[in-house]
């Protein structure tokens, strides 16, 4: 009925969090450069994917899915372009049913998307660590 609203809410929170973390990362990066006299960062540090970028993956997944599901709800007449936008808000019985659906299906959707994103982050961390280990090994063998 309006299950996608749970993922929309999560998408808003994640997008705001991404912007805040991005700002903090930029500030710490410029502070680091200043303290090192603009010296270049270690190549492995430079190549690592920032957490804000990884968090943006979740935001994109949530926004993308929510957008297409919102279209599906529009198709089925559950979402309308006028106030209160959700046809289930017409009476208290259907509103209760809608809230129940958001709490079950909607939350399950948000949990699954977050779990898939967590797996993506773990895999990318493992790949980065492997790359670091190979680089360290190559540097040691060169010396």
């Amino acid at each position: 009925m309006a299950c996608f609203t749970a993922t929309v809410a999560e998408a808003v929170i994640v997008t705001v969090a991404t912007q805040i973390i991005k700002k903090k990362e930029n500030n710490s990066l410029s502070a680091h450069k200043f303290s090192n006299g603009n010296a270049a960062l270690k190549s492995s540090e430079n190549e690592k994917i920032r957490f804000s970028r990884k968090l943006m993956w979740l935001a994109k997944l949530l926004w993308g899915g929510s957008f297409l599901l919102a279209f599906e709800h529009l198709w089925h007449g559950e979402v309308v372009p006028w106030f209160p936008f959700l046809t289930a808000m017409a009476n208290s019985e259907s509103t209760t049913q809608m809230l129940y659906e958001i709490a079950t299906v909607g939350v399950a959707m948000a949990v699954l998307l977050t779990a898939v994103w967590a797996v993506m982050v773990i895999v990318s961390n493992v790949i980065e660590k492997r790359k670091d280990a190979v680089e360290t090994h190559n540097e040691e063998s060169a010396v």
Partner: protein
Amino acid sequence: MTLLLTVFAAVISTVVWYTRPVDNKLCTGVLCWLFWGASLMWLVDAVFEYAELKAEYFNPAPLDMLNDAFLGLSVIALALVVWVVTLLIKDPDGKVKAALKNKNKK
């Protein structure tokens, strides 16, 4: 049917993204996020529906199936439109910019 069509679209767009040149001028990542996000969400929807209907879930009425297929194709069309608009706004090759400049010169 909508889930099935979206999963196919997600797999195809991921293959296109994977085989793209490194610069990714076509912005195919947009399609991947749209289709995978929707596929996972519809998967949850399907699981809940299966829990309610059991085996009946796999025997939909022909008219429902047709409507779902129509919806699935419309969803793919909408995602493709979003992708094209993103591509034109980002304009990685500067073709839109060049076309607008030429128009101004004339």
